[in-house]
């Protein structure tokens, strides 16, 4: 595998990644918000979105991605996704239904679309949690440095030389 300094000398890779990443991210959002009509849903959307961002990191360096999505942000979003899912369930309880019974969300909508509203909300929670978790796992891997045993090795995937936890 090549460190990004050598990727920078590969115009084809850079141009293709630059063109593909926005399309992948857009497709991720489509899968997320169209999941109740077409195939897909929160999990698939989260995975696709994270994969698009990882391609960005592979091409332009993990430091560039960290400026867009800091590590701490992924940790917060992981929890936020789970909490959003749980909050929908608790909200249904406050509105008189059982935990996660979306029909109780009816008064929030104009018609009888409580189920629809609930599903969109929890799928969003799933998508956020999955995307953030995959990003966090990726960061955990690239931040690792080989144990100093004197042998020189290639820098971690997408990582700049000389970065990472000491």
């Amino acid at each position, binding site marked *: 595998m090549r460190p990004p300094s050598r990727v920078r000398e590969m115009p084809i890779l850079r141009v293709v990644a630059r063109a593909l990443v926005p399309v992948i991210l857009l497709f991720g959002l489509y899968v997320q918000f169209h999941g109740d009509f077409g195939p897909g849903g929160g999990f*698939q959307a989260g*995975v696709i979105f994270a994969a698009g961002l990882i391609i960005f990191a592979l091409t332009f360096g993990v430091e560039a991605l960290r400026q867009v999505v800091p590590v701490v942000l992924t940790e917060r979003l992981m929890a936020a996704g789970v909490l959003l*899912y749980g909050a929908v369930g608790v909200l249904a309880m406050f509105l008189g239904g059982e935990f996660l019974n979306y029909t109780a969300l009816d008064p929030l909508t104009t018609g009888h679309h409580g189920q629809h509203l609930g599903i969109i909300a929890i799928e969003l929670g799933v998508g956020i949690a999955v995307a*953030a978790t995959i990003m966090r*796992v990726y960061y955990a891997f690239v931040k690792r440095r080989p144990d100093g045993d004197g042998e020189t090795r290639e820098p971690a995937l997408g990582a700049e030389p000389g970065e990472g936890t000491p």
Partner: protein
Amino acid sequence: MPPVELLLMLLLLATVIVVARLKDLFAAAMLTGIASLLAAGLFVLMDAVDVAFTEAAVGAGVSTVLFLGALSLTSRREKQQERTRILRILPIVIVVATGAALIYGTWDMPAYGDPDAVIHHHLAPDLIAETENKIHIPNIVTAILASFRGYDTFGEVVVIFTAGVGVALLLGGLGLRRRGSGTEEES
């Protein structure tokens, strides 16, 4: 079995045999990605498009990247080690026996795509007939996963979250702890 499925199955078989025999871990990691992509193609042919999405993005994409990330921390080639005769033969015996048991098990399964299979006559017709009225969305899979089985899906999300926290603790260290030590630049 239709020809396209057969072709993908044979390619999949060839790929995994090569992966098992390779000593070059970089090539093995790339080939596992290709195996996942072939599996994703099979899922599309089985009309399981959402599973195919997941397999292509996780199996062929993210996990290949993680393999490569792990690989950059170790050496690129598998370590050669002397093995006794028993250690050389035992794995293939176990694999062949397990494979034979699995193939024996498939004899009781309905034929591929058989519309008379039990699974198509228990619950599925009710769900297909009733979901639109009860949930008001056309995607039955999403309705089942998100509403009928909302508890299960909540549990799965918690599992994913837990896995992420586990990896962060084991490999990366959580942000809070790093900020506590005041050495890192990011936030």
